[in-house]
């Protein structure tokens, strides 16, 4: 190989190798950031019609979402504060009161309100609600199933 060609090849491989290294570092850092990120940031869930007198329990979720995530599984239970008895909330019968893409994949501010029927056997008292949700999140070429749990949501039934 001629000296000039050798130098050119060497310089080209230097540049390509440097760019590859930079790409690897950027991808690695982005992956760690995506992997450790929560689905919702600064988010909270509360019951909006406390104390509940009717047949429906209304919830509000406020916060923000950084990555595109789609809800795949959700489960919620109410526990009696005094006895610890569990009352599953039927999410299959939930109704949307206000939704800006809670189930969809939009990023940004999330302001979502929904209602679930009050379980028939629920008696008056103070309850703690827990909500377990599973999401499929995507970011660039990364994909991950994430779980977010909200607990200690106060519910009062009258």
């Amino acid at each position, binding site marked *: 190989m001629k000296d000039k060609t050798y130098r050119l090849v*060497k310089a080209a*491989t*230097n540049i*390509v*190798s440097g760019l*590859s*290294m930079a*790409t*690897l570092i950027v991808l*690695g850092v982005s*992956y760690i950031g995506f992997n450790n990120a929560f689905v919702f940031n600064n988010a909270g869930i509360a019951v909006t019609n406390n104390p509940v007198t009717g047949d429906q329990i209304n919830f509000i979720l406020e916060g923000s979402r950084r990555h595109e995530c789609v809800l795949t599984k959700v489960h919620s239970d109410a526990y009696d504060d005094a006895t610890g008895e569990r009352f599953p909330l039927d999410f299959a019968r939930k109704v949307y009161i206000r939704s800006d893409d809670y189930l969809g994949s939009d990023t940004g501010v999330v302001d979502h309100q929904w209602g679930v029927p009050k379980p028939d056997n629920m008696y008056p008292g103070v309850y703690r609600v827990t909500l377990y949700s599973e999401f499929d999140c995507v970011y660039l*070429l*990364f*994909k991950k199933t994430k779980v977010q749990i909200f607990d200690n949501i106060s519910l009062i039934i009258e």
Partner: protein
Amino acid sequence: MDKVKNQKIQKQVERWDLFARLTPTLFLATSLILVVFDVVPLEYAFYIGLTGFAITAVSWWWWAIFTIKYLISILSRASTNLTDVNNEIKIVKKELEDLKDER
């Protein structure tokens, strides 16, 4: 002995140079192809890359330390030898001057 070791170090430097030049590009291309075609999950590629990076960093660190130690010993020996040569030249110079004076 020194010459053989120096050549060995030169070869090692060339190998490190080649490794640094090729590995990032090869790893990036291979892992991208494997991840895109779902042969390997991204998580595996990430941890393989991280492990490779860590092994390379530690190996290079120890190699650099031993090479620097060797180079310093060579430098120190060369410096001592140069001082000896300098002293001997001074002695020879003095003897020559003494001889001149005697004549």
